[in-house]
């Protein structure tokens, strides 16, 4: 198809349709209302089904059921709504069902505000729900990438039988950019028929049971170990990141994800002109996090700068990667305030002029 | 004798009062107020019967009413 100018939210919806998803269950919340609105008129066109759930709690359990029947399904919401889904997300992960979740983050905590934020990083990557489980988390930085990652998300979810979350911010949801949907896209993972799905037990096939309950502790421990093995495979095979301005050595390594990284690219170019040599690693998969890559890149720099639209969450993963081998600095804005290239440059100068305390 | 006072800055120009007035003595101004709304005005104060329907219907409490002397109550409010 030709390039189209699309709102991020609509591109996400269309990407799901292109990925063969015919089911959406969700509840309105700014700044992602355009996703359910788009699905509500788009899905009927492809013989799909849109259901406006009575709440996010209900929506998350509806996708639990739909996924259990083996169909592709997704839901979307924003921060407070995602919090309400935590119990069901834990069930879905425990039952090893493939679903795609979209969180267009807004500022918190509580009702907070509706402007862009990245303050749900911990919730998404460390598990906001109970028990040992992990989501595969992908963070787009443009509308086109959002569209691409959503399609991959469905393949990854099916392949790993694991929930995949698209973690975007208000900008991704609201802005318009050109998007192109490639014809005849091939899945990013080999896909098998879903023999495990609860679709009626015909003939003498044993009943298929979708559940996360294991009353025998040994069985549950084995189940936990099975999940751990799966997560380790993800860490080996699904790490995604992008690198910018990488050279032999550089003054500063910037680590940023999502739309914030776009600002950093502008800042890096501005700094070049001022003779400051900075590079950036942009984690695309937040879980699994590109620890090895960040560790290696940090070695080439004098210092590391992490920028987020939060009070500092991804920085913990950067610390885990760098293990104290380089000073790590943080620049963050909150509440819907955005970061400008000028702010990044200023912070970088401050760091390099050592005016700032180590690990300041 | 009733006296209607419309706060032009409070008015959002919804015209509900204009519709509500049984005497049809309210109208909309041709100019806009500070917030860009064409505001309501009293066109013919003397024909006002003091029923307060305009006051009651105004979502922005932009209309107040005072009376000189006694006032006839058309309904309990």
């Amino acid at each position: 198809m030709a390039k189209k100018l699309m709102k991020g939210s609509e591109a996400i919806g269309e990407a799901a349709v292109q990925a063969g998803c015919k089911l959406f269950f969700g509840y309105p919340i700014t700044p992602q209302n355009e996703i359910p609105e788009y699905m509500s008129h788009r899905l009927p066109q492809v013989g799909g089904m849109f259901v406006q759930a009575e709440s996010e709690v209900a929506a998350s359990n509806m996708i639990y059921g739909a996924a259990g029947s083996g169909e592709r399904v997704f839901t979307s919401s924003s921060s407070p709504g995602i919090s309400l889904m935590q119990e069901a997300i834990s069930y879905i992960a425990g039952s090893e069902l493939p679903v795609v979740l979209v969180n267009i983050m807004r500022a918190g905590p509580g009702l907070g505000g509706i402007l862009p934020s990245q303050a749900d990083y911990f919730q998404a990557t460390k598990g906001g729900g109970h028990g040992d489980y992990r989501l595969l988390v992908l963070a787009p930085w443009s509308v086109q990438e959002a569209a691409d990652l959503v399609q991959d998300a469905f393949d990854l979810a099916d392949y790993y039988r694991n929930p995949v979350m698209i973690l975007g911010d208000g900008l991704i949801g609201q802005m318009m950019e050109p998007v192109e949907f490639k014809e005849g896209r091939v899945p990013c993972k080999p896909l098998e028929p879903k023999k495990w799905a609860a679709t009626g037990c015909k003939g003498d096939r044993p009943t298929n049971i979708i559940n996360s309950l294991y009353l025998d502790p040994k069985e549950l421990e084995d189940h936990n170990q099975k999940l751990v093995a799966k997560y380790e495979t993800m860490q080996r095979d699904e790490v995604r990141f992008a690198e910018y301005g990488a050279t032999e050595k550089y003054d500063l390594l910037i680590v940023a994800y999502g739309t914030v990284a776009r600002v950093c690219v502008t800042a890096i170019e501005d700094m070049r002109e001022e003779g400051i040599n900075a590079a950036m690693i942009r984690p695309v998969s937040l879980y699994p996090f590109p620890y090895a890559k960040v560790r290696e890149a940090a070695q080439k720099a004098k210092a590391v700068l992490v920028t987020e639209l939060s009070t500092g969450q991804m920085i913990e993963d950067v610390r885990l990667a760098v293990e104290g081998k380089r000073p790590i600095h943080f620049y963050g804005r909150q509440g819907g305030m955005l970061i400008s290239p000028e702010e990044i440059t200023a912070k970088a100068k401050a760091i390099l002029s050592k005016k700032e305390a180590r690990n300041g | 004798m009733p006296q209607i006072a419309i706060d032009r800055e409070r008015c959002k120009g919804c015209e509900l009062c204009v519709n509500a007035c049984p005497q049809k003595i309210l109208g909309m101004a041709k100019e806009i107020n500070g917030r860009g709304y064409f505001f309501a005005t009293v066109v013919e104060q003397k024909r006002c019967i003091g029923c307060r329907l305009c006051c009651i219907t105004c979502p922005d409490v932009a209309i107040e009413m005072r009376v000189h002397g006694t006032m006839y109550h058309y309904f309990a409010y």
Partner: protein
Amino acid sequence: MAETVFCRPEALANVHTHYCPGCTHGVIHRLVAEVVDELGVRERTIGIAPVGCSVLAYNYFTTDFHEASHGRAPAVATGVKRARPDLVVFSYQGDGDLASIGMGEIVHCANRGEKITVIFVNNAIYGMTGGQMAPTTLPGQVATTCQTGRDVSLAGYPIRVSELLSTLRTPAFVARASVHTPLMAVNAKEMIRRAFKYQIANACFSLVEVLSTCPTNWGIPPAEATAWLEANMIPYYPLGIFKVPEKEDRAPKPMGK
């Protein structure tokens, strides 16, 4: 010697509201404030703000206020009232807030017989988020998540909250009113007054459903909106009192085979 016979009640803050022109949220706010003043309870009243267009209600009243998460105002109100039974507690909720995500909380709050007053503003739409379908959206009514009109075969029929709550056995006052004309507003105020009185007498849970307009998301001017409400909402949402604490509940009996 000139006397002011109509002016802003003390319980209503003297500020501009963010409500759209002609939105009757403003009228309902004033009615509640007038009742609070007339009953002389402003200084011991706590309002519970919902998530909806009235999310900023705490700026528009001169009483203490407490925020609630979307749909949970009845639970927050329960917390306040059980902690401080001497306070007068009212929640102010929209139809998405109360009838969709908050259905469980309102049913159980009413069923526990919490001594609170709920002002339930039914405008048949999600106003704040830009006009999505509400549980109260009428059959065929257009909304951003049902752009060809609500299809009852997919989304079911609108929920009538007053009818539903009146079947509970726990004593309560439940009524439906409207504010699309001044005289309707006068009656709505009377219902709201009775609701607060029942609470103050520690008699029972009370809820007044008030039909309201949303010119912006209905996509018609305010005056037309009131007419649309009269023509379309009243037939489906009949006005009147559905339950009083003095009388038994109104649960239907078995119809037999």
